[in-house]
């Protein structure tokens, strides 16, 4: 250990308290491991049936593992404040872009509540009931009113974990993370060691439930698909699977919302972000290798079926009590109720924590707006009792509940989850990557760049953040192409684009409204975005 060559005097005023572990926890939990693997398989391979999960995962880990930690780590370490990417984009590009993008992201976090809280109910709770033989309860949970009740409970729990302050949040996160990771390990061990003789296991359970046997199931799915399912992978579908794989690798950025509270943000954010990509990468790869012990065309059929409107039950003759997602396949390999409880509780824990993290992010986004006078003053109110922005949390809860009601009783499509990711790719990740690309070269941010601890980080004379931003943009470019240009998702995401444009326009209107309102009382709100010259 190097000798300490510094003297410190007794003085008050410490600032930052969250450790690398805390930051990693926030980033990792926002990658939502078990549900993300369900998305990777059922929404990824389920759409791109010739996709190779291993290739999709490796490419995602390389691109997201380089691009995301550098973009979010360098920006977060250079501007270590807790308002997320709104701070970076408003300072580097323009306040209008910052607000419009942030408006989109605020929407995204509310959307995550109303998409993911229902997932706690279905498929989370329905799997738990089905795995334990409570079929009546499983059927009940799929009813819209039941899903609404269970999603509301999840929303209330998420609200309570955050509203009472970081102490409860941090402790609960450790417990949920333990449950989640433990569950994934058990699930993947079963997939690894019990995959042998899977067709026989499937046929045995199918016979018990008067369901399609292994070959009949594949044939039935192929009939719906309109032709034979691929028996091997292709590059196009493998790149397409990366869209869904992004759930496991692109979301560690959530830690940007606590950048103002972590110790040594210059190192913590970048490293925590990297580990929050690598750890899910290891689990995803392990899962993929384990799954590939099964026939390729069977996996395609199972995930295609699970991605249908009524899950695998959309296939005529499929009567198993649980759908053909990867958790269901693990249960077929070793059909023991206690294992089913572990799998489904782990799934629900991750989905619930996603909802909880919305309560970490949304209130901080609008808090940052309030501080910049881009919203009402009560956005900045901190409860002296709970040390948190309680009013913002309540607003988040109310908006989340409205969203849950609309989602459950109106749309209720798992693909809504991909719509949220599409919005994030365009608005949050894309705009922020462009900010990172421009950061070293923009005159208005020169003061911040000069003070940045990364200004001397260069590779072949090019700032590392520029390289990271390019890698990130390549990654996002692949996602963008498959979201918006390729035919598989295009029809679905076109509606989304109109919606995103409306959100952006609302954000721009919001900016001008508050700028005008501040000007009326003599405040030039643009001064809050400008950098002061240090010399």
């Amino acid at each position: 250990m190097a000798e300490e060559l510094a003297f410190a005097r007794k003085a008050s005023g410490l600032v930052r308290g969250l450790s690398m572990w805390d930051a990693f926890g926030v980033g990792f939990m926002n990658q939502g491991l078990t549900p993300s693997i369900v998305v990777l398989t059922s929404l990824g391979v389920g759409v791109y049936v010739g996709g190779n999960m291993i290739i999709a995962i490796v490419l995602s880990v390389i691109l997201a593992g380089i691009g995301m930690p550098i973009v979010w780590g360098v920006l977060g370490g250079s501007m270590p404040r807790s308002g997320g990417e709104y701070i970076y984009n408003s300072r580097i590009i323009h306040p209008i872009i910052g607000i419009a993008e942030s408006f989109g992201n605020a929407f995204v976090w509310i959307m995550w509540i109303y998409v993911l809280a229902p997932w706690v109910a279905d498929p989370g709770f329905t799997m738990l009931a089905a795995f334990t033989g409570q079929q009546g309860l499983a059927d009940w949970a799929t009813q819209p009113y039941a899903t609404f009740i269970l999603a509301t409970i999840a929303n209330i729990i998420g609200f309570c974990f955050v509203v009472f302050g970081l102490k409860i949040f941090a402790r609960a996160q450790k417990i949920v993370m333990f449950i989640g990771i433990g569950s994934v390990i058990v699930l993947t061990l079963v997939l690894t060691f019990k995959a042998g003789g899977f067709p026989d296991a499937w046929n045995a359970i199918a016979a018990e439930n008067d369901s399609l046997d292994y070959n009949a199931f594949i044939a039935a799915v192929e009939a719906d698909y309109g032709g034979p399912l691929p028996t091997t992978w292709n590059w196009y579908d493998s790149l397409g699977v990366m869209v869904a794989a992004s759930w496991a690798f692109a979301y560690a950025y959530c830690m940007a919302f606590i950048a103002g509270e972590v110790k040594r943000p210059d190192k913590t954010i970048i490293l925590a972000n990297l580990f929050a990509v690598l750890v899910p990468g290891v689990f995803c790869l392990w899962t993929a290798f384990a799954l590939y012990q099964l026939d390729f065309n069977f996996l395609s059929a199972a995930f295609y079926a699970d991605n249908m409107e009524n899950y695998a039950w959309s296939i005529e003759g499929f009567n198993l009590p649980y759908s053909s997602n990867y958790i269901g396949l693990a249960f077929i390999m070793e059909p023991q109720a206690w294992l089913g409880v572990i799998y489904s509780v782990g799934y629900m824990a991750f989905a619930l924590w996603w909802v909880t993290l919305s309560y970490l992010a949304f209130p901080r986004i609008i808090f940052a707006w309030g501080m910049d006078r881009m919203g009402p003053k009560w956005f900045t109110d901190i409860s002296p009792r709970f040390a948190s922005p309680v009013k913002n949390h309540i607003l988040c809860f109310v908006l989340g509940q409205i969203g849950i009601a609309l989602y459950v009783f109106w749309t209720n499509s798992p693909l809504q989850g991909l719509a949220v990711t599409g919005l994030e790719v365009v608005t949050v990740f894309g705009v922020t990557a462009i900010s990172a690309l421009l950061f070293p070269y923009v005159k208005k941010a020169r003061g911040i760049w000069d003070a940045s601890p990364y200004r001397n980080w260069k590779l072949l004379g090019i700032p590392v953040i520029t390289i990271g931003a390019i890698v990130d943009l390549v990654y996002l470019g692949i996602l963008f192409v498959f979201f918006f240009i390729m035919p598989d998702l295009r029809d679905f995401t076109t509606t989304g684009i109109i919606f995103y444009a409306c959100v952006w326009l609302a954000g721009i209107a919001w900016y001008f409204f508050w700028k005008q309102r501040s000007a009326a009382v003599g405040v030039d709100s643009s001064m809050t975005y400008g950098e002061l010259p240090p010399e």
Partner: protein
Amino acid sequence: MIKLFFVTDIHGSNVCYRKFLNALPIYGVDTAVLLGDLTGKVLVPLVEKGNDTWECTLMGQHRLIETQEQLAEIKKITENAGYYWVHQSREEFDETRADPAKIDALFKQLVLARVQEWLDLADERLEGKPFQMFMAPGNDDWFVIDDMIDAAKLVHPCDRRMVDLEGHEMITSSASNPTPWDTPREMSEEDLEKHLYELCGLVKNYETAIFNFHVPPHGYSLDLCPKLDENLTMAADEKIHAGSIGAKKVIEQYQPLLGLHGHIHESRGAQKAGRTLLINPGSEYSEGILKGALIMLDKKKIKDYVFTSG
């Protein structure tokens, strides 16, 4: 209407101080108040290794300095973070390290030099300008700097007195209630309360008054800070109120127009205490970010305020 710019706790950061002075014309400020803590907490000896090389520990990292450019860079980073640097031979460093009194004396010498440098710079920048600037220390600052502020040409002192801001009477206290660090201007809660009541006695019109107390009142959102354990290590997840009960009493009793506070860097925000608007602009001095609050004051009311960050 007057435009008041309030900044606090820059802790020796050269870059924050320069940004503060530059902000006055940029923000169109009428009156600026720079409240303590003004002085830094860390001294970085640049220890000679021979052959024009040095070593030091900066922000927890051991640094080897091999060129004059690197040396200039380290000095600049040190000053901007609010630290002080000094050239020392290995023998001088070992001698200083072995004697706490020598460390203290060296600290004082460097702290005073920087305060004087700041006051001289303010004289240079404020000459002939339409804004006025007030300065007061905080609980971390040694009493010796008061005389320097009192002697400044264009910077007005305001600690432990009442000053008039175009009709608004402002009283200022640099003191704080006890902290775990036993800092120079701490008082017991009883003594602090008495001291604040004495200051309040100087005010004639509380309705338009400004209470500029370094320590925020207890129990509001402006005094929340991480809980410390017996080793003064912060709990990441638990916050406590560290403000002064005496400050709370006088503010709630006299209900001034405005309360300006600092001390708790992480609790940037504004909150109402009855009719009093309490503001803590927070501090990110170690990152070179100047946090401030711009307050538009009418004769009898606060027209508006905005937090700044530059």
